[in-house]
């Protein structure tokens, strides 16, 4: 009797609704539902998403010792990735796709990729992600530039050649664009690509080693977020994005980097890479300084450990006034860079200061100068009126750290919390350090020190 009442509930749902549910699963799981019952046999083919991810399968090397020079990689039931994907395409009856995601690195064949991508490019495609590593560079089909009016999210990662045709209709709906390690057919391919994206909001650009100098001129009035990862020196970079709110730069900073019109920037992250070959550290330091000068209006700033170290090499260190800076993340390694006090001086509205000691860097370009704490003249305004939280990660209890904390405690009038996360190497010393810390005079009566 109970069995009669246990009716199949999910069958009452219409096909489209079930396929909507299946669209939240990975393709592999969705296809697996085809063996549930006769009704479910073809429901997965109505899902408008396809994510073909080689990482979802368990691979073994096949045992076929035929004429092949190397073994094919197959899943447990003996199929290669190509066979699986081809079968999936065949069974789907070309139901239009909204999202297509391909992650294929091992034994990637560009011919198959071309076939699949060309099939995926329809007038309803909204998201396209390719993460491939073919043995020959893969040419993006030109139909991408002409038939993707609804494309919102495009991510190309890998050995892909981009060559926008001269008269392309472009991407009128594209908001997110990732170009990671992509190669450009001509000098102006990148610029042409960007002109096809009138409403772009997020650009993530990663540049790997190029044969010749490339120009990256990013003039996008709607751009809100820009992530740059430059792993090469041969580039020319120009950024003109008045609506930009978030900027991240990782990598090598070249001579010709122009930043204009970043007055709306809210948060900036700068992680310049360590370059063992740079001869003139002063010059490099100046480049970093010029970059930071353009960020004068940010509310939140995060400087990496090499960045702050290069700043120490600038002969006449004169940072701009950071009028709006409220959150400052300052990374360093070895010793606290002497530029910190002056930076605090120039950030009158600073509310949270986070210091982070990076582990494991053995290089050091600057000599260890002692911190210049010339605060007898005037106490930095942020310390006397705004700073409410100080965080120190990787605290080691060294002399210069204690000195810094001592100074700040003395001057910070409205400091509420000081959080110290210690480096694991000072377990034994913790108690001694804590005792010292507690003895420091505090200007703020409500200050609480927590030690992790």
């Amino acid at each position, binding site marked *: 009797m109970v069995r009669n009442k*246990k*009716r*199949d*509930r*999910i069958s*009452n*749902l*219409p096909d489209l*609704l079930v396929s*909507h*549910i*299946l*669209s*939240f*699963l990975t393709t592999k*799981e969705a*296809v*697996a*539902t*085809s*063996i*549930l*019952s*006769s009704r479910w*046999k073809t429901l997965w083919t109505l899902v408008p998403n396809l994510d073909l991810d080689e*990482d979802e399968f*368990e*691979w*073994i*090397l096949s*045992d076929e010792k035929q004429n092949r020079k190397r*073994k094919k*990689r197959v899943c*447990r*039931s*003996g*199929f290669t990735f190509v066979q*699986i994907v081809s*079968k999936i395409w065949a*069974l789907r009856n070309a139901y239009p796709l909204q999202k297509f995601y391909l992650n294929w*690195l*091992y034994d990637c064949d560009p011919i198959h990729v071309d076939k699949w991508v060309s099939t995926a490019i329809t007038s309803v495609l909204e998201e396209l992600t390719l*993460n491939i*590593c073919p*043995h020959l560079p893969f040419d993006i089909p030109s139909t991408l530039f002409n038939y993707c009016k609804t494309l919102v999210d495009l991510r190309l*990662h*890998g050995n892909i050649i981009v060559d926008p045709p001269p008269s392309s209709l472009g991407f009128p709906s594209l908001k997110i664009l990732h170009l990671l390690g992509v190669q450009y057919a001509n000098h102006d391919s990148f610029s042409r690509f960007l002109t096809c994206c009138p409403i772009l909001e997020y650009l993530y650009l990663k540049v*790997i*080693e190029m044969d010749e100098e490339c120009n990256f001129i990013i003039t996008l009035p709607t751009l809100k977020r820009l992530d740059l*990862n430059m*792993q090469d020196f041969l580039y020319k970079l120009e950024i003109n994005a008045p609506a930009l709110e978030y900027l991240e730069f*990782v*990598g090598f900073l070249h001579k010709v980097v122009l930043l204009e019109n970043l007055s709306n920037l809210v948060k900036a992250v700068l992680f310049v*890479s*360590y*370059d*063992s070959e740079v001869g003139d550290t002063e010059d490099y330091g100046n480049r970093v300084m010029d970059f930071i000068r353009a960020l004068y209006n940010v509310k939140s700033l995060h400087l*990496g450990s*090499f960045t702050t170290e290069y700043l120490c090499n600038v002969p006449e260190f004169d940072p701009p006034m950071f009028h709006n800076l409220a959150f400052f993340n300052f990374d360093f390694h070895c010793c606290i860079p002497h530029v910190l006090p002056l930076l605090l001086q120039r950030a009158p509205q600073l509310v949270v200061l986070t210091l982070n000691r990076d582990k*494991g860097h053995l290089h050091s370009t600057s000599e260890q100068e002692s911190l210049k704490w010339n605060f007898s003249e005037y106490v930095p305004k942020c310390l006397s009126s705004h700073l409410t939280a100080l965080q120190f990660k990787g605290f080691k209890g060294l002399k210069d750290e204690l000195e810094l904390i001592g100074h700040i405690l003395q001057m910070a009038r409205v400091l509420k919390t000081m959080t110290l996360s210690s480096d694991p190497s000072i377990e034994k010393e913790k108690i001694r350090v804590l005792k010292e810390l507690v003895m420091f005079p505090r200007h703020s009566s409500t200050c609480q020190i927590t030690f992790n």
Partner: protein
Amino acid sequence: MFWKALKKSLYHPNKVKSLNKGHRLFALSLPCFYWRCKVQFLINLHCPCQMSEGAMAVVKPEMKSYIWLQTADGSIQQVEEEVAMFCPMICREVIQTGTGSSKNYAISLPQRVNPAILGLILDYCRFHQVPGRSNKERKTFDEKFIRMDTKRLCELTSAADSLQLKPLVDLTSRALARIIEGKTPEEIRETFHLPDDLTEEEKLEPLRNITDDPRIRLLNRLYARKRKELKEREKLKNVEVEEERVDDRSVDDLLSFINGGDGDTKGTRTNKNKKKNRRRKDQSKDSCLNNEMHDSACHDGEGNNGLLASASTSSKLQDSAAVTFSPKLEFDDGDIDDDLDPAMKEELDREVEDFARRLNSVWPERMQELFQGRKLVPISLNGNSAMSRYTSLDQR
């Protein structure tokens, strides 16, 4: 007389005053004059169906307006207007046909909506139609709201779909997807009470090769299991090996042991991505190598964790006899298990167990060899941590 009454009601100080000619003419065309005022109210507000605080203030507080809804079983409910109007379907019915104003003119809801489910939907609408809520509040509410048994969840999805309440459809669909995720087909059938009405042949399609010799398949599976176990053991070893740089000849021995000389199971995936970025500060979000390590580390959690825990807690690694290689390391066969009949399954399990037993007998001796021969092995500097760990072991 009718017209006078209408004018009186229209110009009543507590009702909306800003009615223009067009509105009035439209209002006259509707059957119920009380309802006419309401409609004009709404026209002024240009539905989408959320009322602002200001507009609400115009209506007298006691005169809270209700909409009448009728479910398929005939029962009629009275719902606050702003709550009901959150549903696009109800909103449309109200605007286009003017129903819902009284008990006699209740809006009939689609068949898929029963009274209990309607109650749930209205709870959802009641919460979300308030404009001032933060995203976090809404999310917390959603998470609590969605906790119900599967049967009810299906009904709710169906009802939300028929009322075209898209946010609720997405919420419930995601919840159902999470239920389906990670389950075997039998478990899914169990959860949703689906009939198991496909033949074995049909189950093997589309991704199976029907013409495969079952013995070959068995062999493949056996190899796969062995390789997988080895891989896991290797990774386990590598976790410690990386710090001590122990000679790994013994792993190759094991490989040749089962494969009869074919020791090529390491590194099933070559790293094809060019890694010229030697000097780069390690900010890379994704790289081939990361993917590979992540994949191999992401094996079945239970088996691995258990082994890892026992390995790391024993500082004296001679205790590794405790680290037995349990053949019960299960992995997700998914739908592949269905095709083997029990006899073959048993045979397979027996073979794997045999193999594991052989491995277990050999392993403790091998471990002894490893650690006695350790001092002769060159140490490569792998960052400060490797050195310190090595020296700390020496101090034992």
